[in-house]
């Protein structure tokens, strides 16, 4: 760390390591030496202008000009300032190039980047996702042969299958599970659900678990709850749909 870079860092109020890196980049672009750039930044002198054609455009971003004070909204006498276009003394710029990198204040640009390969980032991101997908979703979802597991390959009737569709479309699974876990909180809810295939498991239990609910309550009780008994939302179902839901 040289005195020049320390002075430049102090003048600019940014870490010295970044000043040095920025100065090196600027020097490479302008053809000036690093010390010249640092001296300019430290002393507030002129920074060598970037070579427009050779400079990697948009290294950071196009620098914005200082905002002009807007005209008062209700000022009808004074005409609004005419649009000004101030051209910097620069070489012609071809299509697709961005504005000059040099800031008016001579500060080094702050959006400093490095030359990494976006395709590499993309490939890494996709590969990472695939790994997580396989381990975190496909792996645990594969059917496992567990001895004694309760399977709900239940022979649903036609009405019950229609009822399952209603159960889904109404959003019952947002509040009710059909999943008895081997934890003390699920005591007395019935056989533990170990492997399932045609139930709607659900992931929230704002309402009670509905596993084997048909064995614990009567059809009329279920019908009464569904149509608004207690705190349960009243579902406006046709009589036929309600029968199907109860059958499920």
């Amino acid at each position, binding site marked *: 760390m040289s005195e020049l870079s320390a002075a430049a860092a102090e003048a600019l*109020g940014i870490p010295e390591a970044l000043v040095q890196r920025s100065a090196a980049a600027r020097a490479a672009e302008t053809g000036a030496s690093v010390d010249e750039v640092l001296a300019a930044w430290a002393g507030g002198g002129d920074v060598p202008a970037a070579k427009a054609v050779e400079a990697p455009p948009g290294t950071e971003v196009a620098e914005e000009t200082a905002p002009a004070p807007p005209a008062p909204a209700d000022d009808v006498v004074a005409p609004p300032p005419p649009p000004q276009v101030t051209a910097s003394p620069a070489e012609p710029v071809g299509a697709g190039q961005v*504005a000059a990198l040099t800031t008016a204040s001579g500060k080094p640009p702050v959006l400093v980047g490095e030359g990494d390969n976006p395709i590499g980032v*993309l490939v890494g991101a996709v590969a990472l996702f695939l790994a997580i997908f396989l381990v975190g*979703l496909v792996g645990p979802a594969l*059917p496992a042969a567990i001895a004694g597991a309760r399977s709900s390959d239940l022979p649903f009737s036609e009405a019950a299958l229609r009822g399952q569709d209603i159960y889904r479309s109404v959003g*019952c699974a947002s509040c009710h599970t059909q*999943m008895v876990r081997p934890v003390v909180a699920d005591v007395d809810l019935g056989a533990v659900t170990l492997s399932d295939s045609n139930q709607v*498991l*659900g992931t929230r239990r704002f309402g009670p678990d509905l596993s084997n609910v048909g064995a614990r309550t009567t059809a009329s009780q279920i019908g009464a709850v569904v149509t608004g008994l207690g705190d349960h*939302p009243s579902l406006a179902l046709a009589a036929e749909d309600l029968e199907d839901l109860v059958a499920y």
Partner: protein
Amino acid sequence: MAATQTADIKALLGADADGDRVVSAHFLVGAVFLALAGALELMALFSLRFGGLSPVGYGRMESMANITIMLGFLVVSLTGGIYYVLPRLTGTRLWRRELALTGLVVTSGLVLIDLLAVVLGLGDGRQPLGLPWWLHIPMLGALTIPFAVTMMTIRSREETRSFVTLWFVIGGVAWLPLLYLAYFAGDLPFISSLGEAYSDLFFSAGFVTLWVFVVGGGLFYYTVVKELDIPLASRQLAAVGFWSLGFAGAWWGTAQLMFGPGPGWISGVSAALGLAFPIGALANASNVSLTLQGHWERLSDKPGVVSGVIGLYLGVAVAILASFASFPSIGSVTALTAYWEAIEYGALFGVGVLLVAGITFEAMPRVSGRDLSSLDRPRSFNRWTIIGAGGVMLSLVAAGLVSGFSWVAGSNSAAYVDAGEGWAAGAGASDVLLLVAVGFGVVAFLGQLAYAATVIGTVTAGRAVTQEILVYGSDDRQGTREATVAEGDDE
């Protein structure tokens, strides 16, 4: 008049006026959807507490709120943010701006159709969106558009060096359609209900981590550095943040089925690997904090930066809560409870909204040619969002813990004998907290309205400001390199 003049002058100078119009269109549509999502979520919270009074059950209300906040607001707005930074970081125009605009139209239209499908009972009840399978296909197509536009823009870039934001953008646009594909796969006929449940949770968690945290955090790096004109503290720490979030993926979603019918090993794996979530969130928050060292006092007139900083810190809290509950010992209490609802709410309506504001408040003046209509509204937005969303989150966390402990303790002590009794007592214990959550939800909704008013008000009533010139087109070969456009307001 001013807007027309601005656009004309920008077109004359060859600036990327079309690209900026695409960006502002995304922000405007997103703002409208946020106001709608806030109202729907408030109704969902209400129906959670007062189920008997709600005309539409919590299940449908929650799906509708999720569709609106996730697809309508977070996808649309963050995509707008991506389209905003891409030309500024690559030095080239946005690729096929008309395609980007088509993506916005299609996504917005599909969100409205989705809402209609759910309210009409055509959905399949799968969380978080509850859509019928056939609506996933066009949405999947719409979600690939940001990927195509982003990668093709980067392909033709002039700038060979990458600012860190580009990593986050690339990761986000690649992960989003893949996540949605994984969610869609849960609808395949041969997928078991267990696979379906894992798919739902994988998508819910992955959307938060791989889209909201990754893209929102990445865009905010740009905001901080650009707004304050200070260099990023550490590129390495940003890399840690990016890859940790990528690694964290959706593990905290998988963990929610703890003790369920899945294999036992997944609990340990998701708990251990899920630790990457708070690491990633913390890396980004600390990196921004280090960047802002010595510049905090400059944030008083930069509401967007304040929004993003609050969002990052809230994100750390969300990530820690999610990671905490992924361990079996805690999960045995919190599983299936409102605790997880709290995390999702905090992530979507807290972190997501704040991070979007972090880029929107910075970008709107530059893409619309008008300054923020007011600094008071963004400040109110920040205040109400942190109080409201934070309050809802804490209330629901407490509700989840109370009901969880009640279930466990009641069952353990044999206080509950009949099936269902334990649930009723456990859920009843948290009723007051759910009521508190509704109250905080109202405050959060006020914040969401303030955001929408700020974004929309900027276009309709903001004062004209200086424009930046990004990319010169074929019409501009005279060497004009900087331009100042000053003009009066049109009132």
